[in-house]
């Protein structure tokens, strides 16, 4: 990591014993010697996937509707100038690299945190431009706030300019849940898409064979 601060702190004597203790704890927590994930492993850190949101075709969608599939949760908004289009294009590219039959076990939930501007039609049109496995979802602000809080994230609105436009701050990471809706990984676009595809393939394989669903 080229970050001078983190390098300096790593070298500092203050942190070294603590780091060792944390490392030992982390090692002792792994009961099975499994290969590490490429994305950040956050299993057990957050609650299982659960939501009730409105799809762009007017249906009410819950987490149970896609039970058995590997699900990715991403918060954004369609007027987003950078993070959202980049991330959705990245997810499309990663999914394309997952072998064909497994690809269908993968779903992306794009949750718009800007329900005032993102009408169902706009949302549907937006997500379909990236990948057919992306589902555009939204709800009222209170419901969205509850869901965001559940995954320790938030969003906020900037000041409205003369054209009625405003910026929205939101999470730039993708939460990945396994076939049983348990939190597994936190994916960010700085990870090469091939590595993301490897993780997704592994999760999709596990979701496909119910006996080894625990992996």
């Amino acid at each position, binding site marked *: 990591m080229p*970050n001078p601060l983190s390098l300096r*702190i790593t070298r500092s004597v203050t942190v070294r014993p603590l*780091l060792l203790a944390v490392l030992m704890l982390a090692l002792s927590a792994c009961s099975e010697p499994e290969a590490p994930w490429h994305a950040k492993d*956050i299993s057990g850190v*957050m609650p299982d996937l659960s939501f009730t949101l409105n799809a762009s075709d007017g249906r009410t969608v819950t987490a149970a509707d896609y039970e058995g599939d590997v699900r990715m949760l991403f918060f954004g908004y369609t007027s987003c100038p950078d993070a959202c289009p980049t991330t959705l294009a990245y997810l499309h590219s990663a999914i394309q690299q997952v072998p064909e039959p497994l690809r269908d076990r993968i779903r992306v939930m794009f949750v718009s945190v800007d329900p005032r501007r993102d009408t169902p039609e706009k949302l549907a049109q937006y997500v379909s431009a990236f990948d057919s496995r992306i589902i555009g979802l939204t709800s009222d602000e209170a419901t969205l706030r509850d869901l965001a809080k559940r995954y320790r994230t938030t969003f906020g609105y900037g000041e409205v300019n003369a054209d009625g436009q405003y910026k929205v701050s939101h999470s*730039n990471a993708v939460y990945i849940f396994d076939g049983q809706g348990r939190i597994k990984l936190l994916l960010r676009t700085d990870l090469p898409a091939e590595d993301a595809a490897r993780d997704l393939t592994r999760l999709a394989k596990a979701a496909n064979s119910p006996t080894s669903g625990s992996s």
Partner: protein
Amino acid sequence: MATQLLLPYDPSPVTIAVFAAVLVLYLLGLRRCPAATRPGSLRVVAFLTGLLLCYGVMQTRFDYYAQYMFFVHRGQHLVLHHLGPFLIALSNPLPVLQYWRRQLPGQLMPWLTPVRLLYRCLQNAWVAPFLFVGLIFFWLWPPVHFNAMLDRDLYWVMNWSMLVDGVLFWWLMLDPRNPYTTTALGYGKRILILVLVAVPQIILGASITFARQSVYDVYEVCGRAWPMAPATDQLVGGIITWIPPAMMSILGVLLVLRRLMNHNDTASDTAQMTPTG
């Protein structure tokens, strides 16, 4: 709207219970301790302000902003590690503590030996400053900070460790007992420690302030409370890590110096009085 601001964003029953217990024990002890040693109103206000500040940054809407803005988080730790404990230690709640110690049944004392040993170990003149600065560096180490902001349990461990260690450290520095007649740390050592702990905090704060790239990207991952430029957030957070803690050290040094001078004055007075008396 006002009640919304005062209610906790993430209610923690343990935190609320601990603060309530401390408040009740303090007020009861205050009423019942001997009038001669009872803290005056200024000291009571200092204690309650310190306690309220710590509670406020942990269990009101402030905590929401502290979770999603780096600079507010730094403000939260400034209160938990410096300002709140500083006020609590300055208020000298020793008479209240002594009152409650007298209430403990005698047969409980042997059971408290491990606690006493742990306390003595933590308050060692080498361990205490190391722990005080070490915790700041540990929780601000980018990978650890990332996990602490993402993992709810670790987040609580972080905030509580900062508060508990803050109280221990500032109590060691501002202990009102006479170092010449009790086990309290000598004034010279206190001044040295206060200056020494300021140096790494200044370096850390300055390196965050002047960092060109994003050091704490967890605020991108979790989303910010409002669309503030990440660089501005980091800059302000760095300044809060850098300047106010250094000022707290200076304030501590001034207080210890004042006590040292008062002590020297009374000591020379007694010395002058001894031959004549």
